[in-house]
């Protein structure tokens, strides 16, 4: 869980307030917020006194992202982190819309580690699927012409066969 830190703690650490698109406020340590390259740049140029709006990211997503950033700013042993990452991904990938938005937000906030983690999980999820299954999953309209599709299917026939 993203820690929403009390005022007493806030005085000890350098704290920064982030505001999501639906006006939810999150108070986190500066080193946690720094995990995002974009927020780091904002803090560098505008300081941390006033709240930083994260207008493109909704509260539930931001909460999840900050949870990740906080865990990853502690510098724990690699095995612990890997285990934690796996559990984090298992939970997130259950809801595809949430998972997609999580990736989009981490991409937007420039948290490369998290983008990597999600993309690898995503790739594993899609790898064995057929094009039709992917289209259904993401509601993609097949706008290729019959000829184009046939050309791809015949030229790269090997890609469509099971190994």
């Amino acid at each position: 869980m993203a820690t929403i830190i009390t005022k007493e703690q806030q005085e000890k650490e350098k704290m920064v307030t982030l505001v999501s698109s639906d006006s939810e406020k999150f108070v986190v340590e500066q080193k946690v917020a720094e995990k995002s390259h974009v927020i780091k740049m904002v803090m560098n140029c505008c300081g941390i006194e006033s709240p930083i709006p994260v207008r493109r990211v909704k509260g539930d997503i931001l909460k999840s992202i900050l949870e990740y950033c906080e865990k990853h700013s502690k510098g724990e042993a690699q095995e612990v982190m890997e285990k934690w990452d796996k559990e984090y991904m298992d939970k997130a990938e259950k809801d595809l819309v949430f998972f997609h938005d999580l990736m989009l937000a981490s991409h937007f906030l420039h948290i490369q580690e998290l983008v990597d983690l999600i993309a690898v999980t995503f790739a594993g999820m899609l790898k064995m699927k057929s094009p039709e299954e992917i289209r259904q999953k993401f509601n993609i309209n097949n706008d290729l012409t019959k000829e184009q599709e046939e050309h791809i299917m015949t030229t790269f026939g090997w890609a469509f066969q099971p190994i």
Partner: protein
Amino acid sequence: MKKKKKHALISKKPAEKKKPVIINEDIVTEILLRLPTKSIFKFKCISKTWLKIITDPWFANAYKSFNAVLPVFAGCFCVSPKNHELIFHPLKHCLESPSMNTLPLNLQDLSISSILSSNGLLLLCTTDGRKMVCNPVTGRRLMIPKMKDNTEWYHAFGLIHEKDNHVKVVFAYKLATDDSQTALFLSDLSLDNKPVTRKELEPGKDWLEMLTKWQCRTKNIEFRVYCSKKNEWNQKRLVSKFPCYVCFDPDQMAGVPIGDNLYWITVDGEVLVYNNMIKSEASMTELIGAPAAIKTLDAITIYCSGNEILLYCARDVIMKNVVIIWELMSDQKSWALLRFSVSENKFHLLRQGVDQLRCMSKSSITGTT
């Protein structure tokens, strides 16, 4: 400051859980970069957007640098007879090749009589007797100048890469047709559906004469080497004299290059080696005996494995589904039996690659761009 993003963030409202995801292009790219090549080819036919992302040259580059290993390129090109497009058939699907397309060869300006390949490059022969080396990736061509008293018809060919993008092109000619009588045993010759003997061949019929010449064995083979760096043919005659008769396999004229060596399979199942570096004529070429009695083998072919070792593949004459593979040992004389039974499918692909075109490539496609 925050950057304006091109793509709108698609966020769901908690109430409408069932709203389908509309996947963002940046996200698609990030995911594709982490997928194996096979999936990428497969996903080309999802939609125009996915196709656009995958065929963008930027993506191929990003994919290559992202995956950090130079792709090992094991497979064969086949030329489609219809439109001269090169189609790549990888032997292992999980290999990462950044080549996401077939390669148009654009040979419309030439009248091609044959295409052979060696070491990732193609040798084009035109009907008017010109020869050129062509890089199928960049489309660049290198014209080989005509050599004095050069017979148009060579019996084998091979290509060796040199420094600074230069090549050495080796042509092998059978010198004397000492054993012309054996020619007719090698293949059934027929004319108007009747078997013919050598005596019946009309002297004027060029192609029959040619065919006979082709199938004759010889003890003397001349090598002519064109070096693109000096832009000239070798001055000294390089003739190899063998203790026994040799005949190149007409289906496998293109040599298999490994390091400084070129290997050809002969119709008797032996392997002829030509070493580019050895200057003395006596040891420049050598014959390596077949690993097993030729009569028990069928569909013999040689190719280079990924780790630069010559492999000798054949099928058992009796048990057709058993494929046998030998590996050439470092003494360049003896063979080690590697393993039995490759699936029939893959073996056909191998044969197809060597027979029909012709191109077994071990070089990376990006290495030549």
